[in-house]
């Protein structure tokens, strides 16, 4: 079928803020789909509340609404834009749920809008547990014995029949929110209660536990004519029991014979056919390890994280093809863009192995439980490609940037073997290292398999790596053959050096002497059967290189930002992609190096050449040796790219933009202090230290509170406010868990207004698109603060000072490109907190709300253009007529045991935007986009630390005026009552019932405001309150500044008639 001629204007719904379980993969899918629709001449109207995405750019869609993703807002957009269709299957679960609601309520029909692609009936069949089960029964596809329950009693009755352990899965939630495995009645009741509350329809699936089976996934496509293909299958190294998002995944499957492979493939096609999917679909199976028995775990009738992975793993652009199918095309009418010869109606053949590893946030939540379950916890992932599994695994390990470049995890060296044995039983993020250590200790593969259920094949491959380590360790001279084999398995020089006790440089020289170099192969979807037109490369050490270098072209290498983690998110991908586009426009040949399969930057048609590789000095050098780029851009790829600056210079690659010395000057305390002094810019007093002893001396000299942080980090990693010696000792211990190459900074902490500025500098002039102000006072990480543009509470005089300081700093640091500066305004004085001569988290946000494309401008500047020549007047730009509020979004409910109170260490996973000509409405939209939709029950808990007690009175008064019933613990209650606020006392957690906990678990509380005392949280009470509130879905605020903002938004907004802002018109 050719394209449906009635489709002219399509609403695409995005996935909203990045949260655990719904991350950058939907920006990738959405961006690809929007481009694919526009290629067909279709007008695309985009709705997504996430300003950090590429899809919300005016380059990607015709109309862009960065508005809260609620059914009401989508309805309003539809009424305004009058589209003929909605495409709901590219924005993850969030988009699908909204589309379903609009369809079910008859709204779409009423407005003559059709759902493109998969129908709502199909979506319901796949998503509704009961209907899904019925459908599977009809086509004889087995599911684990299960029952959908809507209350505890029915749940317990069913468990009576099938016995423990039991898996629970709430219907219509993302990333398996609220799911889990219960081994006894107590666990069962707890998880079930939580699940029933989280499910949009109050349903939870209770099923037989198939933990330990092989977990296999198929990515399937189907068109309207009924043609079905599988793009790829994947096998999880971690057996069933660990969420696939947290599992180590390999593609294609490795341990399935053709019989099993085809059995499951046919089942996947049966399912997609019966469901009537039109587009992409993901089917997850559990396969019994020693029989042909299998069961269907789950079907996602949309593009998903797995489909992003499958796209990158095979080169098959699933989202693009899904969009074309939605328009009416059949698979055999859609060209395969990689080969240009074949069509989308074929199945990719891989001639390499792909390994995906999750990036888990336990470095941020050091006290949280590291146990991996069916509840996803990863914030991001890396993918690696190699000709062998060992190599792919080794590359993935170092791509994670978690201070581990191999399977050697130093902490295990001193543990007794019994303990290692015991640790094999733990299912957490370190299991792969434990398996390696167990093999080193001589525990047999069989025994490891019996405990972990990890397939022997994988254990044997891990053993190959362990044996190679051993060989290197025990052989005095590294022969050419040994070196060749170690490199084939992708041992980095650094690790070989570490094992052999030599220097990395010696190993490199030896290797070069042997003539052993990385070569590059092409990912072409077809195992070389057809010639590929798209240069998408991966490295290996056992073959000839396929890279053809054009010496005549000026080439620039753009270094990406690696896996999405807290503190380094999708915003850096936005910057990398935009920079690449600008460089392409300027006629350069662009080379992207990155390893994140979820991102737009690793799509095959963004850069001229894509290297899917770890971002370490050695891996980059291997590429540089072949490509010999004329320059590299590091300022857009976050800390990952910045860290490579020195190495690139050593390789002789010029860094475009701000020089490395000046990047250093901004980070080096002494150099930076000199610059500040020269510019007469004050900063909080501070010292640099290495040891805990020095830190204690510095803190006492400066006087508490002090801010403690390592230099050269992003997202305030390891940054804390210390109020006592005890805090200092604890923080220094945490920071020094990893060897620090750079000193730790101890600064006097000033509790003032935090201001942030991004600017472009061309060496002479600067351009400041706008000044942003944080709602929360200094002390809360800028990424976790609500950011307001234009700044509201500072005077024009202060703004001039900010502009002046920015210019002075940019000039003194000789910035060419982007600079981000954080200031504190304290008692009418402006202090500098830190300067980052690179792109920042706020760049996409400020670009979109001011309409000034600063990445584009910065890229042009670093290639020699001047601000004045690009049509801009230097200096601070006039303020926009819109208020734009960037609101942090957290994923605390996903991480059991994580402390949620905010501080200088960043904890948010994403952000959303509220934009309006009215400040209060902008604020309201920002909260709404974050899922704070109040009031509901008009009951709240207010309990604050002593220093906040007076401030709490005003908060109490305002909430009372809104009709809220306030519950407070004794001391807060007394202060409130004394000041005329009618709060009710409630017992603390450790006191008898009814206490705070009972109140929270009653599910009638809208909001908890709980400000913890600064420094290390010593009160268990507060922690329990906050965790329970988060886990029961209650909004928790830990800063009174945020509470004020929420009040402002609630007091004066007309929630039913929100204005809509089309960003593309700014």
């Amino acid at each position, binding site marked *: 079928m050719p394209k449906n001629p009635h489709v002219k204007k399509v609403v695409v719904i995005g996935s909203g803020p990045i949260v655990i379980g719904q991350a950058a993969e939907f920006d990738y899918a959405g961006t690809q789909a929007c481009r694919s629709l526009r290629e067909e001449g279709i007008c695309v109207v985009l709705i997504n509340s996430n300003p950090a995405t590429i899809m919300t750019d005016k380059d990607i869609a015709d109309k862009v609404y960065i508005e809260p993703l609620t059914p009401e807002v989508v309805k309003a957009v539809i009424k305004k834009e009058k589209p003929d269709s909605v495409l709901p299957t590219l924005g993850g679960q969030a988009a699908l749920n909204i589309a379903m609601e609009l369809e079910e309520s008859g709204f779409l029909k009423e407005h003559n809008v059709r759902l493109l692609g998969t129908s709502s009936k199909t979506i319901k069949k796949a998503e509704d547990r009961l209907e899904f089960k019925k459908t599977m029964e009809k086509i004889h596809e087995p599911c684990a014995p299960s029952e959908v329950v809507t209350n505890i009693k029915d749940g317990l009755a069913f468990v009576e029949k099938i016995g423990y352990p039991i898996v629970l899965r709430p219907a219509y939630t993302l990333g398996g929110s609220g799911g889990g495995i219960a081994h006894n009645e107590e666990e069962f009741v707890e998880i079930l209660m939580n699940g029933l509350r989280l499910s949009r329809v109050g349903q939870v699936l209770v099923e037989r536990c198939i933990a330990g089976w092989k977990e296999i996934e198929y990515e399937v496509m189907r068109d309207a004519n009924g043609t079905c293909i599988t793009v790829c299958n994947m096998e999880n190294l971690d057996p069933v029991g660990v969420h696939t998002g947290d599992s180590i995944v390999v593609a294609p499957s490795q341990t399935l014979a053709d019989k099993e492979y085809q059995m499951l493939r046919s089942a996947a096609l049966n399912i997609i056919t019966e469901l009537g999917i039109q587009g992409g679909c993901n089917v997850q199976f559990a396969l019994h390890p020693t029989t042909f028995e299998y069961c269907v775990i789950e079907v996602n009738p949309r593009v998903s994280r797995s489909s992003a992975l499958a796209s990158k793993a095979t080169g098959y652009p699933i989202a693009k093809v899904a969009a074309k199918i939605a328009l009416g095309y*059949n698979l055999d009418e859609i060209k395969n863009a990689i080969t240009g010869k074949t069509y989308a109606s074929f199945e990719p053949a891989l001639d390499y192995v792909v390994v995906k590893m999750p990036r888990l946030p336990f470095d941020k939540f050091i006290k949280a439980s590291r146990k991996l379950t069916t509840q996803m916890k990863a914030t991001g992932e890396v993918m690696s490609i190699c000709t062998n599994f060992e190599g792919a695994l080794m590359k993935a390990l170092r791509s994670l940037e978690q201070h581990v470049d191999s399977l050697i995890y130093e902490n295990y060296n001193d543990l007794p073997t019994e303990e290692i044995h015991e640790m094999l039983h733990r299912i957490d993020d370190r299991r792969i290292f434990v398996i390696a250590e167990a093999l080193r200790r001589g525990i047999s593969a069989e025994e490891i398999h019996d405990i972990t259920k990890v397939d022997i094949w994988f254990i044997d491959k891990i053993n190959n790596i362990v044996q190679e380590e051993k060989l290197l360790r025990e052989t005095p001279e590294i022969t050419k053959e040994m070196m060749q084999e170690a490199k084939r398995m992708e041992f980095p020089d650094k690790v070989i050096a570490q094992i052999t006790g030599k220097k990395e440089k010696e190993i490199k020289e030896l290797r070069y002497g042997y003539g052993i170099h990385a070569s590059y192969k092409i990912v072409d979807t077809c195992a*070389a059967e057809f010639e590929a037109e798209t240069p998408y490369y991966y490295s290996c050490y056992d073959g000839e290189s396929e890279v053809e270098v054009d010496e005549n072209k000026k080439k620039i290498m753009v270094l990406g930002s690696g896996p999405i983690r807290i503190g380094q998110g999708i915003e850096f991908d936005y910057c990398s992609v935009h920079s690449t586009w600008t460089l392409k426009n300027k006629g350069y040949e662009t080379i992207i190096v990155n390893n994140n399969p979820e991102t737009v930057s690793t799509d095959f048609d963004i850069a001229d050449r894509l290297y899917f590789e770890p971002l370490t000095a050695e891996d980059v050098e291997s590429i540089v040796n072949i490509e010999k780029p004329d320059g590299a851009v590091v300022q857009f790829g976050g800390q990952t790219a910045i860290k490579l600056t020195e190495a690139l210079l050593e390789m002789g690659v010029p860094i475009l933009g701000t020089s490395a010395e000046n990047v250093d000057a901004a980070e080096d305390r002494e150099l930076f202090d000199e610059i500040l002094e020269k510019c007469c810019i004050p900063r909080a007093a501070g010292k640099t230290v290495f040891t805990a002893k020095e830190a204690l001396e510095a803190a006492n000299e400066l006087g508490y509170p002090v801010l403690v942080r390592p230099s050269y980090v992003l997202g305030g990693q390891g940054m804390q406010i210390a109020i006592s010696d005890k805090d200092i000792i604890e923080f220094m211990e945490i920071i020094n868990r990893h060897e620090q190459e750079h000193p730790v900074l101890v600064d006097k902490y000033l509790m003032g207004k935090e201001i942030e500025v991004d600017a472009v500098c061309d060496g002479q002039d600067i351009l400041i698109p706008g000044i942003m102000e944080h709602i929360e006072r200094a002390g809360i990480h800028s990424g976790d603060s609500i950011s307001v543009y234009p700044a509201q509470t500072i005077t024009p005089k202060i703004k001039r000072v900010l502009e002046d300081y920015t210019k002075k700093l940019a000039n003194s640091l000789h910035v060419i490109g982007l600079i981000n500066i954080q200031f504190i305004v304290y008692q009418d004085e402006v202090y500098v907190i830190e300067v980052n001569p690179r792109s920042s988290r706020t760049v996409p946000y400020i670009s979109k709300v001011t309409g000034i494309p600063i990445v584009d401008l910065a890229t042009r500047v670093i290639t020699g253009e001047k601000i004045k020549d690009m049509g801009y007047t230097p200096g601070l730009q006039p303020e926009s007529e819109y208020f734009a509020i960037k609101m942090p979004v957290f994923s605390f409910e996903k991480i059991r045991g994580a402390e949620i109170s905010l501080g200088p260490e960043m904890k948010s996973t994403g952000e959303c935007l509220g934009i309006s000509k009215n400040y209060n409405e902008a604020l309201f939209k920002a909260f709404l986009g974050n899922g704070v939709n109040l009031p509901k029950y008009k009951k709240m808990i207010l309990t604050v630390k002593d220093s906040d007690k007076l401030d709490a009175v005003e908060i109490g008064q305002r909430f009372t005026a809104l009709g809220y019933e306030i519950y407070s613990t004794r001391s807060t209650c007394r202060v409130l009552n004394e000041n005329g606020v009618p709060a009710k006392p409630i017992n603390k957690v450790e006191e008898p019932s009814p206490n705070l906990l009972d109140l929270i678990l009653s599910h009638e509380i809208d909001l908890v405001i709980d400000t913890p005392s600064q420094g290390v949280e010593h009160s268990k009470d507060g922690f329990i309150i906050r965790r329970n509130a988060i886990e029961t879905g209650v909004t928790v605020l830990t800063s009174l500044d945020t509470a004020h903002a929420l009040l402002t938004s609630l007091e004066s907004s007309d929630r039913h008639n929100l204005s809509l802002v089309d960003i593309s018109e700014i």
Partner: protein
Amino acid sequence: MKAFLILEDGHVFEGKSVGSTKEIISEIVFNTSMTGYLEVLTDPSYAGQSVCMTYPLIGNYGICKEDMEAERPWQSGFIVRELAKRPSNFRSEESVESFLIENDITGIEAIDTRALTKILRDKGTMKGMITTDENFDKDDCIKRIKAWSMGHVVLDVTCKEKMSFPGDGYKVAVIDLGVKKNIVRCLLERGCSVTVYPAETPAEEIIADAPDGIMLTNGPGDPKDNVKTIEEIKKLFATKIPIFAICLGHQLLALANGADTQKMKYGHRGANHPVKDLKTGKVYISTQNHGYVVKEETLDRDIAEPSFINVNDKTIEGVHYLGKNVQTVQFHPEACAGPLDTGFLFDEFMNMMEVSK
């Protein structure tokens, strides 16, 4: 031990010897299936060929003997990047390496299979030698490679005597041109009573057994070498007995009807080939293994029309003979290895036999 793969164009790959160390000369082809190496190893259509598996990790799940497509492997040589030392699968009985040794099949591993594949793709299928002789004289080897010819290999792989497999349903005569076990299995699963005949069995003998249907199977080599069989097929075609033909059978039936076949540059070998059903427009993913193809322009449109085409290169993948109960396909509906998507063609064959009863 070192092993060398020498191509007739002078390319030499050095690798490690696996399996037998016997020197062999054969045609060199590549297969892109990611699973099913045992089915490929034992498919009689690969007689006279050495197969380079493009997927780099081969032997992961060992040898599950029930998956064999013939009693023994038929390939001359097996070319892989990495052979699993320790297979893992609940059905595995041994490793690929020991299987190769047992069956005296020459193998070579640790070569850049992608580089080899690209040579074959660009220059076309060629002949080559696998040897463990480190002191080989390249010119001499190339001379010997060039002198080698595959010959009429169907006669090597076909059964020597007719074999019967009982069933209650239709009586199917299978003409064994190198039959894969799964073709017989697909018929037996549908209740057929199957008799397998040697390739050159006279048509009269088959007709005398009064089958309800005739199945022409897959097989190795150049279709035009099967002069005698083609003559017999002409006689079978002249009867009203429904015929279903796969791969070489499909080519022989076309030749029997005056069409021509030609050697393809590098053939279709893999489990991901899209074929389009021209009746419905639906595309199926199929297993393929052929180096020759029916020339479309030589097909007499008064006698026959294409029923399936390949989506990638538009070559003929199936023929429907007008006014006849005869269906032929170039691909492998019996799968093994590969997708089961077109297994319904066996059901259609059952219908063809039902209708003509």
